[in-house]
């Protein structure tokens, strides 16, 4: 593996004979609350890293601010725990200039759909090859119980104690409305097999794969997903060979909807439908333009650059 990194000498990953185990990806001990859905997502991600044998030092997790954004600390890869709402620009900068790195983005619902909403929309359009996870617990938890854009209408919080004023924002509809978005999926942390299969499909997609993960906060918003957790009939699994198929879930989740992820209109209808919570790949089009591909530049040596600079200065010569 080589690094297309302009002036940088080639970076060679160290020889690594043994297979990477899940434990090779474990960082600091996770400090999320007991019962937090983030634990399950972390476990699935570590399983994915091992399954794909991703070189830890060639992998970067970028996050913003919030409970879920502590994610990189709990992994033994490179990590960038930045500022609230701005994980996507940082990840874009990394991936644009270092296509050799595998870049994941982890955001919460406040991070992604509120303070960082502009970056979210534009990142979907740039369609840079990133795996982007929205850990959506429908609440601001780290700051202790404030309404987020995905908090259900009527759900009380410290900032809207009489219940959320407005209908919640639908991240799937927003993502599917963005020109050039190429991958939109939804899964839930309490269905680990589906979560893992979805993450794996997302990882293999070339372009920005956007995965909304429904995630329980046991402290502030356990009620948001409680009904769906207790009653599998509320969930519909989207199935397609080009999406996610988890046969062992068929016994529990009886509602299966065959959906071709190439069908954007159907994807939008599914995103808007309120009869079920749909889990699966809503949309996928690997042919969409990738900004990181079309902006790739050939690296130059210092000597080549010097010659070119001289030619450039000629244009301004007196």
């Amino acid at each position, binding site marked *: 593996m080589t*690094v297309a*990194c*302009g*002036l*940088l*000498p080639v*970076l060679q*990953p*160290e020889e690594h004979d043994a297979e990477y185990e899940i434990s090779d990806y474990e960082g*600091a001990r996770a400090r999320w609350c007991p019962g937090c859905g983030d634990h399950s997502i972390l476990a699935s991600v570590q399983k994915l890293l091992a399954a794909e044998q991703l070189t*830890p*030092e*060639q992998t*970067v*997790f*970028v996050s913003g*601010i919030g409970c879920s954004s502590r994610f*990189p*600390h709990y*992994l*033994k*890869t*490179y*990590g*960038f*725990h*930045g*500022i609230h709402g*701005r994980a*996507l*620009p*940082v*990840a*874009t*900068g*990394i*991936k*644009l*200039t*270092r296509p050799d*790195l595998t870049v994941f983005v982890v955001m919460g619902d406040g991070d992604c759909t509120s303070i960082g909403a*502009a*970056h979210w*929309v*534009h990142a979907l359009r740039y369609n840079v090859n990133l795996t982007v996870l929205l850990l959506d617990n429908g609440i601001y938890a780290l700051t202790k119980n404030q309404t987020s854009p995905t908090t259900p209408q009527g759900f009380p919080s410290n900032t809207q104690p009489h219940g959320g004023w407005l209908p919640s924002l639908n991240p799937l509809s927003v993502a599917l409305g963005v020109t050039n978005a190429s991958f939109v999926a939804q899964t839930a942390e309490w269905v680990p097999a589906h979560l893992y299969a979805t993450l794996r499909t997302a990882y293999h997609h070339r372009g920005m794969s956007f995965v909304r993960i429904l995630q329980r906060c046991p402290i502030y918003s356990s009620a948001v997903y409680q009904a769906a957790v207790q009653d599998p009939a509320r969930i519909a699994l989207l199935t397609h060979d080009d999406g996610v198929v988890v046969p062992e879930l068929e016994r529990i989740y009886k509602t299966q909807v065959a959906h071709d992820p190439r069908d954007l209109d159907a994807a939008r209808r599914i995103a808007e439908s309120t009869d079920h919570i749909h889990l699966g790949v809503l949309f996928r089009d690997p042919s969409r333009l990738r900004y990181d591909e079309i*902006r790739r*530049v*050939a*690296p*130059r040596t*210092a000597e080549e*650059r*010097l010659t*070119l*600079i001289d030619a*450039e*200065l000629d244009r*301004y*010569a*007196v």
Partner: protein
Amino acid sequence: MTATAASVTLPSRPITTRLAEHTIEIVSDSGEGAQKCGQIFGSVSAKMGNGVWTVEIIPAEIQPPPRVPEGASGYRIRLGRGPITNWGDATNLALAFNEQVLLARHRLGALAPDAVLLVEDKWATHEDADIRTAWTQAMEELSHRNYRIIPVPMETECLTLVDNPRKGKNMFALGMLACIYGRDMERIKEQIAYTFRKKSEAVYEQSVALLAHGYAWAEEHIDFRVEVTPAPITEPLVVMNGNEALGLGAIAAGMEMCAMYPITPATSVSHLLSEVFDRFGGIVHQAEDEIAAVGVAIGASYAGKVAFTVTSGPGLALKTEFLGLAVMTEIPLVLIDVQRGGPSTGLPTKVEQSDLLAALFASPGDAPHVVVAPATIEECFHIMVTARRIAEAFRTVVMVLSDANLATGVTPFPRPKPDARWQAAPLDLAPVAEGQKAYQWDDATGLSRRIIPGQPGGAYTVTGLSHDEGSKVAYSSGIHQRSSAMRSRKLAVLQSLLAPPVVYGDAEGDLLIVGWGSTKGAIEEAVDRAHREGIRVSSVHLRFLSPLEPGLKELFGRFKKVCAVEINYSDEPGDPYVTDENRRRGQLTWLLRATTLVDVDCWTRVPGEPLRPGSILDAIRERAPRGGAA
């Protein structure tokens, strides 16, 4: 002299005046091409060996209504025998496409009392009575000065060659100026060909025909010539504006990522790069907003690239949270702020130096970083090399404060000699040793090795949370104290490496003027003139604002008075309610007083234009009597 009296005579031999310098401006409605005319005149003059400093005259709108004073658009060229370092005091010859834009320049005090004014005369006899009245009133207003007004039938003459005189009148004007100032017509044609390189051959042909016609007309009808002899060119020169210099400097400095969002007057740095950067292996990323722009730059830098972002005041305000993150995570970043008038949207196209304190303290929390300011267009080029080197060596943010005066001014300077060492990757890419920390701070200097993703053995998570050497989140009280000290220490180390500033003039005296940024040329010209009047004044110009250059307190002690000159707002002593205690002083003044405990005075103005050397001279005279009376 009134317009009617200024009937054009046919001189048998025009009178030639030889001068050390002359200032010319071309003004028109927006879109009539006065700027292009001025740019070509300026470039050709520089190529002939004249000292040149040009300034754009820009209205705020792209197409303001025609024939209104506030719509004046144009170009001012100060031409000299020797080097010209600033835009000077006033225009000696103005060429205007209508009398209203001329009036605007007159009312701004831009014209010398004895200026020659060449003005399109078609408005005097226009079919619209309102326009004729406006012309008459304008001429009346102008007649109170000792201007020499020469009406020119520009449109009539252009119509002999083209159908639409709005296109190409500027070339006729250029021809006239070429005749009056004895410019090299072949060079002008070359420059026209370059300027219109993206247009058709027909555009070039028509331009050259109008140019020749303007020249011939002036030859026949203008009774004077001005000779500002070019000096022989003894070394290779380049001529460009400050934004072009920043862009080329970025390339020469080995930059690989320019992430930006459009904002006046900074954007043109990225125009240049957008055309050529990919050939150098670089990317210009136009982000969705100012915040994303700096975020992308930080991401690229974190990944090991050499990245910068370029903005102006309002954009700087938006980027500040990310700047704090870059300081906290010790990710190198160069940020260019091409300052304009503020606060808020302020004066988007006009010069001001009022971002200094915002730049110094950009981020909430203690976020020590470097702030530098190029003083000349040439320095705009070289400062990028310095900024990159410091950002990487010190793992910090370096802000480069340029301004609209440097950004749009054009002047020749010695051709830079790019060096392969400027391009070198500063990274030690060897595998990270067992036990190596993410921030293995050297206790004395605060410096630590920079490690990028891909380096085996690293796999750190950087964080904006307060953290220890291992980038682990700080949960104990001592860690924040120590890490704050380590980040701060780097500035002290940098200052220890800086040379004390060089004094312009005598090393001691009655008055020391302190400046920073684009005012250097005007200040030094004022100091020279004051010196000739017998005033014991010197000046010093600072490039480093954070850390400040060493030795200032000692230097200030050698002068009876110290006064900062800046293009930002300060209260005047004697203003209502203003006392010595509550007086809001200039921004550098504030900084100098705080760091040296010297009672530094200030003279600052925010006229929306560069400072004039004559105005600075007046300020010097007020503060330091001739002959150095104690």
